[in-house]
């Protein structure tokens, strides 16, 4: 497999054997507290390495160990096995207590992304305070997404890689209950009946945006 890649790329030197590539990925992931993207790993490893294949091998090797290789969005990381958390009291960082409003806002962004502030308010039934959004932005759990193509082109919010990393999610598609919520129609942005909003046509329930977003 890595042979093919070599031939395709016509590298001057042969890539190291896959076992060695695996060692390299191991060292890079091990050394970093932050997830490392495949792209960055490729850049640091010798030319012609098949990083993804090496990572798949590596993940397998760490299965059931005290440390695990996990995928976080486009990046990979090593993390201790969750069942051993009790050993780490010493390492536990006191996280800032999030308000109920912040937690709900975070969940809404995660499940409805990309979502505008107006949509969050619509779902929660109250206005979203600036502080709540700022706090989530500051924690780097949410970030600005693309602007919506609706009148006023409002900014949207999406969750970040740090969010995925923090909650041990491989991608936003792995959010628990996502499928059920979608099939129950609860992720739709249904306009109130009789509301003659001009964007009624273009706003096909946000469903298309949704699937878009979760493809990433």
């Amino acid at each position, binding site marked *: 497999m890595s042979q093919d890649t070599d031939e395709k790329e016509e590298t001057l030197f042969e890539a190291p054997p896959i076992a060695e590539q695996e060692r390299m990925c191991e060292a890079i992931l091990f050394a970093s507290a932050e997830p490392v993207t495949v792209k960055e790993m490729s850049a640091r490893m010798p030319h012609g390495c098949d990083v993804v294949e090496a990572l798949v091998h590596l993940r397998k090797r760490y299965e059931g160990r005290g440390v695990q290789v996990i995928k976080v969005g486009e990046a990979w990381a090593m993390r201790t096995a969750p069942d051993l958390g009790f050993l780490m009291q010493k390492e536990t960082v006191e996280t800032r207590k999030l308000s109920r409003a912040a937690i709900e806002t975070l*969940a809404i962004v995660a499940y409805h992304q990309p979502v505008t502030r107006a949509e969050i308010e619509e779902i929660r039934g109250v206005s979203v305070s600036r502080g709540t959004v700022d706090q989530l932005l500051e924690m780097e759990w949410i970030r600005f997404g693309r602007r919506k193509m609706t009148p006023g082109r409002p900014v949207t919010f999406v969750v970040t890689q740090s969010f995925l990393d923090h909650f041990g999610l491989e991608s936003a598609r792995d959010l628990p209950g996502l499928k059920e919520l979608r099939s129950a129609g609860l992720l739709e942005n249904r306009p*109130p009946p*009789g509301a003659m909003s001009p964007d009624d046509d273009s706003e096909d329930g946000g469903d298309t945006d949704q699937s878009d977003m979760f493809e990433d």
Partner: protein
Amino acid sequence: MSEDLFEEDQTEPTRVADRMAAEALIVDVDGFEGPLDLLLTLSRTQKVDLRKVSVLQLAQQYLAFVERAKQLRIELAADYLVMAAWLAFLKSRLLLPPDPTEEGPSGEELAAHLAFQLERLQAMREQAATLMARDQLGRDFFARGIPEDVMRVKRVTYTATLLDLMQGYARIRTKDEFRPYIMDRDAVFTLEQALERMRPLIGFAATWTDIATYLPEGFTSDPARLRSATASTFAASLELVKEGKAEIRQEDTFAPIQVRRRDR
């Protein structure tokens, strides 16, 4: 696995929350995050699936709540009153037979939307709880404790093109006259040599002395050698002035250039 955990976790607090909500209805109006939150709490008292919630009953409960708040002279925020008005309208729509001449959505449609909103809010609350019950980084699982920094190594490579090379060579060759390549280094008295010669001598030059007197022996007869020696001796003199070891002057144009030691 974490979902199972969550299920277990979730059932208990919900019951507690129920009890607390019932009390909150009476004492703590401010505890609600707006009318929708209040409606959601009220709907729980119906103890049915949110999809089967009776919106009519809910509207009545809400209106009763607002009525009670008024009796207790509790100041209600405007949006609570707006919701009350809207629910009163909805209630009448639901109770009266539909008027075919009337425009707009039917009571059932409006009620269905409210039920949807409540269900959606409830779903998001549950998801928020599920999310927070997940294993979290820094709490349940951990990152590398001693991360090794990735050193950023900046490597500078220098490059030049053949044109640079040509131009460089041309520059040298046009700077002085072209002459066949011969070694005539003995006709050159370098700045370093001149400095070496002048340094020990300048200490004795208490009075102004013509720099020509510093020319080395054997460099005064041959014009090429004289030129080289004069130039380097002059340059060396300037160097010594710059170092603060000597002073230099020239009385007039083409007059002899004189140096003397500088006393501090």
